[in-house]
């Protein structure tokens, strides 16, 4: 029995295409689902106020906040659910939540 590559199967799969035991062989492929569509607000960083402590990165439940080359932070909007934790925890108030209007 061979391990089928997910790329060669269209979803929804036919019965004989289902991986044995419903095993998933590609770790972390949940990242193909963009949870960003859930949010009603998104965080925006004011880098003039940011002290580069990284707490926003630590406290993001999605793990979607990343540090750039200069040490500032931003959220990956593909995944950000707009929970507001980063803005709430930011000491210097460098993060504001903005309404998504679309």
């Amino acid at each position, binding site marked *: 029995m061979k391990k089928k590559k*997910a790329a060669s199967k269209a*979803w929804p*799969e036919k019965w004989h295409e*289902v*991986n044995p035991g*419903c095993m*998933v062989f*590609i*770790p*972390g*492929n*949940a*990242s*193909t*689902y*963009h*949870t960003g569509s*859930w*949010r009603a607000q998104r965080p925006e960083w004011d880098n003039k106020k940011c*002290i580069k*402590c*990284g*707490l926003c*990165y*630590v*406290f*993001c*439940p*999605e*793990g*979607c906040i990343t*540090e750039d080359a200069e040490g500032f932070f931003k959220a*990956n909007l*593909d*995944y950000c*659910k*707009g*929970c*507001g*934790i980063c*803005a*709430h*925890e930011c000491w210097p108030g460098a993060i504001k*939540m903005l309404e998504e209007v679309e």
Partner: protein
Amino acid sequence: MSTVQNFEIYVPKLLDRREFFSAGHRACQGCGEVLALRLILKALGDDIVVSNATGCMEIISSAYPQTAWEVPYIHVAFENAGAVASGVEAGLKALRRKGRIPDRYVKSVAIAGDGGTVDIGLQALSGAMERGHDMIFFCLDNEAYMNTGIQRSSATPFMAATTTSPAGKAIKGQRTGKKNVAEIMVAHNVPYVATACPSYPIDLVNKVKKAKAVKGPAYIHVFSMCPTGWRSASEETIKLGRLAVETGVFPLYEVENGKYRMTMEIPKKLRPVGDYLKLQGRFRHLNDEDIERVQALVNKEWRKLMNKVATSKPW
């Protein structure tokens, strides 16, 4: 912890930058449990095998054909995380000894919610710990059976409203206090038992690393703030975790070989529990008298813990 000024500023420098749980998972906005899981996995690294009970973390991460897990992962059923992790530990041990897998230490890790730990999972947990398997058991405690719609567990706090312990006219919420599984673990002679909260990430990470270093069983009870089930604002998740610790509702401590040690500043006076309760809709029905009853219970549990801290000695 309190001797270092502004220690939180150094936090991100101490954390592993790799993510072992991919974004794209379906946790609720502001989920404290998935944050705890993310931090736990950073502290553990990738030489682990996770055995997960049915629950929030399992459902939000592993809908076939997708998985958010970047580490080896198995889910079997609701009540057997302890037993499955025991089997994983034994299998890895035997295969490594017989040279059928690489000669590398891989830790078996069980992760279950409060349901899969304190209620239906208690037997399997007890058996696993009694047998002394080299594994860590994490209880991610959001204080109810959240995944199935907020039904009470024996980890639901006194007077909290859940769908099976509703705030009704005759009976106002949960009638009993929180089952103390950490104590049960100490009674099993588990060498390392700790409580942790993701609002204190470095404390959490340190405890996970200590648990990983034990060559034997270890248990960590992790407070998992749940805005959906607790009816709190999603952005206040971390704040709620801090309030739970500061009010003594969820004290942070560890028990090493029977010796109790607080890992938080012991306040001269606990913050009033009302500060914590008023931010959550599940306690909305409490009047002042109810809050006093909750405070009395918190005070009693705090005194019990302080006694143990003062008098316990290593085995």
